[in-house]
């Protein structure tokens, strides 16, 4: 098991910045989006975008099944 790459860590920091550290910027009702208050809309958006960031990190961390041990548990 190797250390995570810098790229993967940076991708992991994006959701932390977006849905935690920046709270003062997005915690408001207006503009309402799709009928939702802006803060609720923003957090729901990050429920959808976090998997994208982690998928990117996954591609960086598990490039091409080069570790034979991890294949037995198997993607395909």
């Amino acid at each position, binding site marked *: 098991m190797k250390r*995570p790459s810098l790229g993967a860590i940076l991708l992991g920091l994006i959701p932390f910045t977006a849905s935690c550290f920046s*709270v003062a910027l997005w915690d408001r009702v207006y503009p309402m989006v799709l009928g939702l208050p802006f803060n609720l809309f923003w957090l729901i958006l990050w429920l959808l975008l976090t*998997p994208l960031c982690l998928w990117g990190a996954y591609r960086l961390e598990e490039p091409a099944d080069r570790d034979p041990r991890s294949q037995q548990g198997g993607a395909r």
Partner: protein
Amino acid sequence: MNSAGAALTIISLTVAIGSLVGFLARYHHKMDLEQWTVGGRGFGLVLVWLLMAGEIYTTYTFLGASGWAYSRGGPVLYILGYGPLMYVVSFFILPPVWELGRRHKLQTQADFFQVRYDSTVLAAFVALVGVVCLIPYLEIQLTGLGLIAEVASFGAIQRTPAMIIAFALVAAFVFVSGVRGVAWVSVIKDLLLVFAAIFVGFAIPHIYFGGIGPMFAALVRAKPNHLTMPGPTQDLGHTWYLTTVLLAGLGFYMWPHFFAASYTAQSGKVLRRNAVIMPLYGLTVPLMLFVGFSAVLVLPGLSNGDLSLLAMVRKTFPAWFLGIIGGAGALTAMVTAAIQLLTGATLYAKNLFRPLLAPGMSDEEVARVARIMVLVLSSGAVLLAIYSSLSLVSLWLLGSAGVAQFFPGVVLGLFSRRVTTSGVFAGMAVGISVALFLMLTHRDPYHGLNAGIIALCFNFFTAGVVTVLTPRPVVRFHDTIPAFAASQPEDQASPEAL
């Protein structure tokens, strides 16, 4: 049949089917300690997902999210905020935790500390703190079960007998089929919960307001401050949100049962892929919030916010439907309670009882002690839930601030060669003391900061200082732990080169 009868029949049926699945799950599997605690380490993506979702989306999410939306407004968003972040953390820490677990056949969280820090005393301390922190969590599930039985029976059933019956069932299927039973009961419970959340979350705002948008518009008109922080509360503002989300995100996988669930995976990759998709399961949480927010205008003045979801369903839909929602809620509480019992019992038997009282015990005897502990812990939790009433939430907060203090030990253990056993031990002891002090003296939040995060800072600081003051540890690990991986030639090749 009257409506209470209809609702209760359906709840009982759901619970009965769920329990039957739990009992049947042991088929074709010999129940030794390895199979009972970690399912033989053979769970693929789907079972790990179901087990983790089953453990994570608890009564607290189901009843508590709508309850907080109702009573506290904007601050409830913290539940949505930390959800995805804990999976980000799990993406990085669970695969190496799994790897170490596979190499050394680890079954509990305390085993990790035992192997990484080579200290039985530290492991026993982690086990003790873990079991103590699990008890209030267990009580919450029980109280949830009691609330459901009370509302669904229109007050005909008392909380206490309902809790005792449900808990006897939980203890029985944990006793018989271990973690595999829990994973399969999760299948039923998740199907019901997702169905219930989607239907209720869209239907209730539609019935009373003509849609989700109009519902929020009406709420903003009636209570302009309800939807932002601090909402109707005074001390749950942005600093509180930031520190609480951070603590919950970092600390969530430090709960002994979530930590140990990673050992059930068949590979570290399963855990990574699970972390990628799990945040999507959180999409059911906003639906629970819609119900709580609707209830602010439709059912003002409820004595207990946690009742808002059940009360809205009871007011809006026929009794059989209340039965389905109640059944989903009851199974949710039972699945969570089951895994907590399993974890607590194994921790006690393996990391406290054996090393301190009976060093010569075989694994079979440990399994026997663990099963007896399932019965002891479940009776204990029932008694506590019956006799202690008011401070459940504060106990839970104490529990999560407590388990978060394992975080430095786990992260430094995985990513630092230099960290010493004394450093981690001292940091943990200081962190737990600070958390206890702040919470017991009612200083949470302290100047707007979550008390657990303050304790965590003390913890990291102490661990760092004591580590620097103690001699460099003798290196014993090779490629299982990331901190030691750089010495392996194969890992020095960059991924791009391949």
